[in-house]
């Protein structure tokens, strides 16, 4: 049997499955001025009031952004089946980060803008992820994608930090290591952009790096 000059090998591990279950409806109310959608929107929001919303968490409890005025708020776009989210929560920069900052008074909200039937939308999958990663912050369901589009959330994770006046102070990646495990930081030194932004705000300084390019999976919006 002749030896090939070049051997091409294919490798596959299981793709994340897409659930088709239809979860409970969640209500999304977004400020009328927030139409959202364009890729440049997150940067354009910097320094402007964050689009308001009211969403339901995994237990059906309503959470309103307006009720958190006066606090520093972190919004984390979330998809429990996205490998970048899995890595960030399992090994990377999101491990324990929310709990650490919530202990100092920061409000932290995860938002899942995946449409019904899309990857990561399934209610039980979200609950399982909360348990697996010991998340103590709410995961809010934005099945219409209205809130995600209002912020221009493009990736999971996509992070936003709001100042105590409710203005967007940071938008972008969780860190500068797009492998999601902190092993390939741009420039050689791992920087957690959200921690840096929170630190700046807590010290009364402008956020030194208000915008970065988010990395990760695309948000699984509906059509």
């Amino acid at each position, binding site marked *: 049997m002749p030896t090939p000059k*070049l*051997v*091409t*090998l*294919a*490798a*596959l591990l299981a793709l994340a499955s897409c659930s088709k279950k239809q979860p409970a409806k969640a209500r999304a109310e977004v400020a009328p001025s927030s139409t959202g959608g364009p890729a440049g929107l997150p940067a354009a929001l910097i320094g402007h009031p964050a689009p308001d919303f009211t969403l339901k968490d995994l237990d059906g409890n309503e959470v309103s952004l307006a009720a958190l005025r006066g606090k520093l708020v972190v919004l984390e776009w979330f998809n429990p089946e996205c*490998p970048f989210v899995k890595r960030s929560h399992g090994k990377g920069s999101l491990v324990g980060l929310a709990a650490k900052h919530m202990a100092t008074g920061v409000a932290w909200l995860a938002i899942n803008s995946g449409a019904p039937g899309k990857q990561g939308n399934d209610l039980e999958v979200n609950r399982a992820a909360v348990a697996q990663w010991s998340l103590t912050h709410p995961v809010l369901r934005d099945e219409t994608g209205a809130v995600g589009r209002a912020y221009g959330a493009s990736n999971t994770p996509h992070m936003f930090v709001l100042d105590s006046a409710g203005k967007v102070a940071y938008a972008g990646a969780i860190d500068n290591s797009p492998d999601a495990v902190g092993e390939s930081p741009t420039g050689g030194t791992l920087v957690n952009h959200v921690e840096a932004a929170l630190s700046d705000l807590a010290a009364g300084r402008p956020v030194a790096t208000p915008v970065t390019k988010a*990395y990760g999976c*695309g948000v699984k919006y509906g059509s």
Partner: protein
Amino acid sequence: MLARALLLALAVAALPGAGCSRKRATPAPAPARSAPSGPPFSVAVEPPTSCAVGAACLARVQVTALGAFHVNREYPYKIALVDSPGVATEQRFTVDSDQRGTVTLTCRPSVAGAGPVTGTLHLSVCSSETCVIEEVPVSVTLPGS
């Protein structure tokens, strides 16, 4: 099991006696873009045809995204190399197209019989529905060193 099989096959592909040429790797034919039934990517190793002691030689590890998948341009493709005594290495990743990216491995053996160069390729490909992050063992034999 799969990882072991891949490592073995890649090592065989890289053997000097396997008649490796410097021509670019030809990936497996891509299935219809809409419905990849198998792997969402393929990996091809193109070892150097010769690699003299003290000289730089190039190996290429090429990733081809299949079907509806594309190379994740944001992902830091790299080969996490295991120490290979007697071989200095550098690597660089380039995106050749939406479907193809290449890690070019520059190897410089300092002693005869050095190698093989082995490691784990970290890669990511995405479709509109999902992303895949994968780690694939690779091995490159350096002929003539």
